[in-house]
C-alpha cells in the first residue's frame, strides 16, 4: 500500500496524526434532514465550477455592440457586449449552454435547499445555545446567496433582468437619507448606466463569493467544533452522539449525495430550459422602455419581495422635507424586519423562556407548539407574498381582475398567518397529547426529557 509511506512523509512535516485519526472515527448522527445543509454545500461547489467555466467566455462590459452571431433573429441588433457574450456562450461555445443552465439551476436549488435547511433548524430548535452563533452565520449566508443570485441574474443584461435591476434601483432610492447616494454609488450614476455590468460582475464573481466562502468555512468549522445535534431516542442523551463514523459510512453517504446532487443539477441543466435570454431581447438604456413586457417574473427567491411591492396599498408618506416612497414599505421595511427578526429569534426565544442552557438534543416540531406555529405563520406569510408576486399571471389564469386578486391577498397576508399559527399550535398540542409517533422514527418510546445536568464547573455557563 502506498498510503502508509505517504502518511508518514506528511506527518514527518506537518504532524497532526491524532487529529486525523480522531476525525476519521468521528460519529455523525443520522437523519435525512441533516443532509439538507450538505446539498447546499454541493450546490455551491457546482456554482463555483460552472461559474468559472462561464467566466472564461463572458464579457463583463456594457458597451454597445452589434450582434452577428449564429442566432438569426437577433442579427444586426444593437446590444451590450455582456448580452452578446451570453448569447455567444449559449449558441457558439460547445457545452456553454448546458453549463449556463446548470449554473442557473444550481443557484435556484442553492437558495431553495438553504431555506429548507433553515426551516429544519428552526422547527427542531437546532439554533438554541450553543448553536445560536452559527444561526447568525447561516442567516447571513442566506442573505448573501439571495444577493448574489440577483447579481448573477442581472449580469446578462437582457430585457427581463434589466426590469429587475430597475426595481432594485427604486428600492435603493427609497432608503431614507442615503437612497439616492446608494443608487448612484452602486450604478455609478443615474440608472441605467454602462458601469452596471462590470460592477455587478466583480461583486458577483469575487466580492460576494469570497465572503460566502469565508462564512461557509466558519459555518462548517462551528459544526465540526460543536458537533451535530441529534434527535431524542433510545440511548441518545445531551452528552453523547449516536450515529455512524465518518469513515467509511458517513463518507460514503456524503459522497453518494454529492454525486447524486450534481447529477440532478446536470439533468435539469440539460433538459429543463431556464432563463432563455435570447427570447427576451437585450436591455438597452432608454429604448428598452419602448419594448412591451408583461408577466415579468424574477427568480423564485425574489418573488416574495415583488409580491410585497404589489400588495402594498398606494400609500406613501409625503411632507415638505421628507418622503417615504411607497416601495420603502415592501422593498425596504418588509425584508429588514424579516431578516432582523430571523437574526434575533434565538436570542429572543432564550429571553422569553429564560433558557440559558446548552442543547444538543433536537426537539420535534410538536414538542414546541408555539415555535412551530410561528414557523407555519411565517411560511404562509411568505407563500402569500410569493403568490402575490404573480398576481397578474393568476388573474389571467382565473380570469379575474388583478385588483381582485390583490385585494384577496391583502386579506390573506394577515389572516392566513394568524390562522396557520393557531391551527398548527393546536395540531402540535393534540399530537403531543395523542402520543402518536412517526412510524419510522428510530429509538422507540422516548424517554422523558431529562432535567438539565448541573454544570460541574459552576459559574462559567453562559
Amino acid at each position, binding site marked *: 500500500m502506498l498510503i502508509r509511506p505517504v502518511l508518514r512523509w506528511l506527518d514527518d512535516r506537518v504532524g497532526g496524526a491524532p487529529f486525523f485519526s480522531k476525525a476519521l472515527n*468521528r*460519529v455523525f448522527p*443520522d437523519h435525512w434532514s441533516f443532509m439538507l445543509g450538505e446539498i447546499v454545500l454541493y450546490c455551491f461547489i457546482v456554482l463555483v465550477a460552472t461559474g468559472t467555466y462561464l467566466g472564461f467566455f463572458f464579457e463583463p462590459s456594457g458597451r454597445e455592440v452589434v450582434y452577428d452571431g449564429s442566432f438569426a433573429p437577433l442579427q444586426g441588433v444593437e446590444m451590450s457586449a455582456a448580452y452578446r457574450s451570453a448569447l455567444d456562450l449559449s449558441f457558439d461555445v*460547445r*457545452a456553454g449552454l*448546458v453549463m449556463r*443552465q446548470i449554473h442557473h439551476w444550481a443557484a435556484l436549488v442553492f437558495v431553495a435547499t438553504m431555506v429548507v435547511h433553515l426551516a429544519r433548524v428552526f422547527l427542531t430548535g437546532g439554533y438554541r445555545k450553543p448553536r445560536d452563533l452559527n444561526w447568525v452565520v447561516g442567516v447571513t449566508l442566506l442573505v448573501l446567496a439571495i444577493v448574489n443570485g440577483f447579481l448573477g441574474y442581472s449580469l446578462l443584461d437582457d430585457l427581463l433582468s434589466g426590469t429587475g435591476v*430597475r426595481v432594485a*434601483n*427604486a428600492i435603493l*432610492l*427609497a432608503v*431614507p*437619507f442615503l*437612497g*439616492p447616494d446608494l*443608487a*448612484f*454609488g452602486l450604478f455609478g*450614476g*443615474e440608472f441605467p448606466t454602462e458601469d452596471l455590468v462590470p460592477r455587478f460582475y466583480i461583486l458577483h464573481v469575487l466580492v460576494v463569493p469570497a465572503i460566502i466562502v469565508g462564512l461557509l468555512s466558519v459555518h462548517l468549522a462551528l459544526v465540526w467544533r460543536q458537533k451535530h445535534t441529534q434527535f431524542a431516542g433510545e*440511548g441518545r442523551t445531551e*452528552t*453523547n*452522539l449516536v450515529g455512524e463514523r465518518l469513515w*467509511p459510512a458517513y463518507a460514503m453517504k456524503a*459522497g*453518494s*449525495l454529492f*454525486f*447524486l446532487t*450534481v*447529477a440532478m443539477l*446536470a*439533468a435539469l441543466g440539460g*433538459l429543463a430550459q431556464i432563463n432563455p435570454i435570447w427570447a427576451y431581447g437585450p436591455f438597452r*438604456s432608454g429604448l428598452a*422602455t*419602448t419594448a*412591451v*413586457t*408583461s408577466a415579468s417574473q424574477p427568480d423564485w427567491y425574489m418573488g416574495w419581495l415583488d409580491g410585497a*411591492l*404589489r400588495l402594498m*396599498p*398606494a*400609500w*406613501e408618506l409625503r411632507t415638505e*422635507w*421628507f*418622503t417615504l*416612497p*411607497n416601495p420603502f414599505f*415592501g422593498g425596504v421595511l418588509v425584508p429588514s424586519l424579516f431578516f432582523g427578526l430571523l437574526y434575533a429569534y434565538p436570542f429572543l426565544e432564550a429571553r422569553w423562556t429564560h433558557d440559558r442552557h446548552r442543547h*444538543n438534543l433536537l426537539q420535534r416540531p410538536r414538542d414546541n407548539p408555539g415555535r412551530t406555529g410561528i414557523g407555519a405563520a411565517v411560511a404562509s406569510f411568505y407563500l402569500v407574498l410569493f403568490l402575490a408576486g404573480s398576481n*397578474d399571471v393568476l388573474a389571467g389564469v382565473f380570469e379575474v381582475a388583478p*385588483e381582485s386578486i390583490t385585494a384577496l391577498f391583502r386579506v390573506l397576508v394577515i389572516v392566513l398567518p394568524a390562522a396557520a399559527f393557531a391551527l398548527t399550535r393546536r395540531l402540535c398540542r393534540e399530537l403531543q397529547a395523542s402520543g402518536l409517533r412517526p412510524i419510522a422514527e428510530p429509538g422507540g418510546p422516548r424517554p422523558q426529557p431529562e432535567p438539565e445536568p448541573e454544570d460541574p*464547573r459552576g459559574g*462559567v*455557563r453562559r
Partner: protein
Amino acid sequence: MERSAAVALTISTLAALGLAAVYIAGGQPQAEGVLLALCLGGIGVALGLWGKDIGGSHREPGAEPAVVTAERPELPSDAGPRADVAASLDRGGRALGRHDRRRFLGRFFATAAGALGLAALFPLRSLGPAPGGALRHTAWREGSRATVDGRPVRAADLAVGSVLTVFPGDDTSEDSATVLIRVDPDRLDLPAGREGWAPDGLVAYSKICTHVGCPVGLYQETTNELLCPCHQSTFDVLRGARPVSGPATRSLPQLPITIDDEGFVVAQSDYEEPIGAGFWNRERRP
C-alpha cells in the same frame, strides 16, 4: 449489492464515453446534460449502495456495528484555562506599562484609528457622482422636438387613440421616455394650471412609472388608462394620469408640449417635477 453497484458504474463509464462522443460530434445541450447526469448519478448510486451495506449482512467478523455511540465532550473550557487567558492578557497589558500610561496612549490610538476609518470612507464617493439634481431633470428642454427613432413627430400623424413613445431629439436616455397620446380634447379634464399643455388633445406623460420606475407600457384605449406591466398600477390619461389602481401613489408627470410652425411636437420646458420612483427628499425644493 455488488452487482447493482457494478451495473451503475458501468452505466457511468459508458455515459462518460458518450459524453466525449457528443462533444466531439459538435455538442448538444440535452444530450450533454443527460449523459453528465448518468455519469455522476451512476457513481452516486454505487457509493450509496456500498455505504448502505456497511454493518449489514456482509459484516466481517469482529467489525463494529454501523451505529455506534460516542462521548460528546463539554464545549466550554474549564475555569482554569479561562482564567489563564485573562491572566495572559493582563501580563501583556502590564508589559505595556502602567495603567494611566496605557489609557493615555490608548485614547490616541483610538482617535488615530477613527480618523483613518473616516478618511478611508471618502473614496466611496468616487463610486458615483453626488445625485445633485440628476433625479429632478430629464433631457427635455424648451423647444426639444419629440422624436421616434431620431425622426421628429408631426402632430397631424397622430389620430385619436394613437400612442407613441418619444424622446427629446437624439437623446434616448431612459428618464426622458415619454408617452404621447391623442385623446378626444372634449373629454380631457386636466388639473388646473395646465392650460395649453395639451394642444388638440395631444397629451404627453412620463413613461417611467412613479411606483418603481418600470415603463408604463400598455395603453387601453377603451378606458383611456395606462397600465404598468410590472406591478399593475393604472393611470387615468384623461385626468392628468392620476393613479387609479395598483401601488402607485403619484400621477405620471405631464410634459407641457406645443406644436411648432412646421407642425412638429415640441416641449415647452422640462417636466416640472421629478419623474419616476420617489426618493426621500423628493418634495424638497432644491
